[in-house]
């Protein structure tokens, strides 16, 4: 069965509410400004309205309420809406959710999910376009999920809501909502923490996550078609846990790595992957690693300016050609 990313999210939310009475929705925005996608949530919002809380514009306390409720036996998901608004909630996310299990010596666990519709969405400009996965990666105790496909949107969100014992930041992306994938409802999900080889290849590994996944796949197709280059695409799926093994094995096979990342270039997810290769994969590298990431520039409003900074399939392909010395 083919589903969209947005359908995957809605399905995960619906099924989680149905499966476990401890699942509570703090807010119900999830799909951002996408009117069509919002309608997919309607059945859940109607059927489980007693477990869906109307929220003031109080991100900090909403995050805290989710954490506290989780510490007291519930399984809340807090809709933090546009990814940039997580900064309003940062004190609770980074210094409460992440630490409680450890500080309590394992007494209390905090299975809360923060839903964050992050990313460069087109015209979000400087204040509505943040991708916080790398920053949050500096906070031990937080799981960070960055699905790049509809099946993982479904599987990872449902796992966070029903199975996880730890706080999770679920990084969604406006521009992924319409992406489709094949979903076999009966098949077991790839374990959380395992990267997905989306496409095998021999010449170069493209490492990607979130919105970078479809763009990396498009780049790989173009490379094949136009240059006869066989590119492997590794979809990290989760930033924490980070599946370094799969990345290292892929690069061990191909000898070359391009890292596609929608974070800003410096201190981004790509830096961590490149560092992993410099530490544990140096012998495999036949060429320098290349990061294809968003320059260290705030996101501008104007379409040609935003486009200039956007990591596209073309730029990823160009990076791949560069590591191949072409």
């Amino acid at each position: 069965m083919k589903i969209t990313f947005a359908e995957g999210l809605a399905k995960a939310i619906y099924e989680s509410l149905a499966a476990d009475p401890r699942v509570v929705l703090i807010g119900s925005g999830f799909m951002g400004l996408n009117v069509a996608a919002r309608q997919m949530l309607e059945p859940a919002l109607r059927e489980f309205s007693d477990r869906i809380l109307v929220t003031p514009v109080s991100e900090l306390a909403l995050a805290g309420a989710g954490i506290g409720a989780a510490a007291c036996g519930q399984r809340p998901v807090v809709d933090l809406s546009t990814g940039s608004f997580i900064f309003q909630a940062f004190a609770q996310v980074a210094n409460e959710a992440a630490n409680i299990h450890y500080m309590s010596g394992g007494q209390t666990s905090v299975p809360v999910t923060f839903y964050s519709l992050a990313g460069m969405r087109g015209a979000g400009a400087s204040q509505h376009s943040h991708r916080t996965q790398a920053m949050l990666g500096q906070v031990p105790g937080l799981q960070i999920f960055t699905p790049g496909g509809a099946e993982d949107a479904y599987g990872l969100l449902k796992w966070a809501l029903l199975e996880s014992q730890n706080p999770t930041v679920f990084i969604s992306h406006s521009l992924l909502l319409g992406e489709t994938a094949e979903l076999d409802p009966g098949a077991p999900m790839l374990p959380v923490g395992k990267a997905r080889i989306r496409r095998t290849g021999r010449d170069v590994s493209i490492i990607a996550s979130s919105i970078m996944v479809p763009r990396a796949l498009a780049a790989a197709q173009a490379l094949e078609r136009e240059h006869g280059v066989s590119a492997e695409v590794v979809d990290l799926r989760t930033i924490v846990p980070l599946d370094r093994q799969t990345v290292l094995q892929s690069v061990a096979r191909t000898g070359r790595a391009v890292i596609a990342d929608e974070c800003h270039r410096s201190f981004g997810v790509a830096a961590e992957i490149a560092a992993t290769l410099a530490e544990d994969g140096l012998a495999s590298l036949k060429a320098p690693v290349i990061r294809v990431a968003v320059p260290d520039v705030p996101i501008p409003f104007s379409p040609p300016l935003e486009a200039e900074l956007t990591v596209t399939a073309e730029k990823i392909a160009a990076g791949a050609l560069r590591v191949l010395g072409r």
Partner: protein
Amino acid sequence: MPKLTVAERVTAMLRIRRFEEQCIRLSKEGQFPGHYHVYIGQEPTAVAACAALAAEDFVFSTWRNHGHLLARGAAADRMMAEILGKAGGYAGGRSGTLHLSVRELGVPATSALVGASLPLATGGALACKRRGSGVTVVFFGDAALEEGAFYEAMIIAAVWKLPILFVCENNSIPPAQRKRGQYTSSTLPAARLADVPQSLQIATEVVDGADADALAGCFERLVAEVRSGGGPRFVEVRCTRWPGNFPLWPELPGGEWQLAWAYGQQPDHADMAAWLQQSDPVLLYLRKQAAAGALDRAQAEAIDASVRAEMTAAVRFALDSPLPAANEAYEHVWAQGRQA
């Protein structure tokens, strides 16, 4: 004595209304991407507040900033160019609609985050206090009272006795749902918004956002009090949400606003008719001035025509302005040299 003549006030209000109509049109034509917010229905607030200000004063605003900027004297053409992401815009297209600012007019930084302008504005007021002159006005919506930033800003404004006027434009409840004495915004548990700053010993006032004259008087008085060292003030402007103000993308119910509606003609849109009758501040002001013999229909039409001409030219300028070159994306990340 109000600072603006009747004709000036009408001009200022119509500039905002006609500007916003062009915005909606351009958005629907696909001339710019993304969502945006217009100021229709709240015009006299910005006009009254800015009329009470001096050049040295500072103004902070939100995503709903077009009206504030126009009232402050910003050029419609450069604003529209910015909204369209063009090189001729105030920020060369980097800002867009959400955080338009014009530093030379004392509007140095506009935030599109709910509540976030308030702390910034306390800094503006601190700068005024340090240099010994000037006041700061900050505009925000009723949802700001749901953000912790609002309270922290109130606290430091009160503790530091800052020359700041907090202007809450409360557009939250349609009149039909309003209960007497229980004017609450959607998700704030306060009975009256002004109760909250009062509890922090900030003097407050409530004013009708549909009454341009009351607004003018109110802002002149409050700004004077703040200017003379009276410390912070908070004013709740009770606006009635314009029927075209949808959460995502505004609409023009009943089409372009007609001056004739102020002079007896009816729109063929029920929601609009009710709003026009009870709440449209521009229309109510025109009627009042016509009745008082201060501005007749012909005079109003002349003003409207000139405002429309200004906006047509602004749109032309904006459409003609080139998109910025791609490498402009890398400019202005870092400030160089000294600030004026």
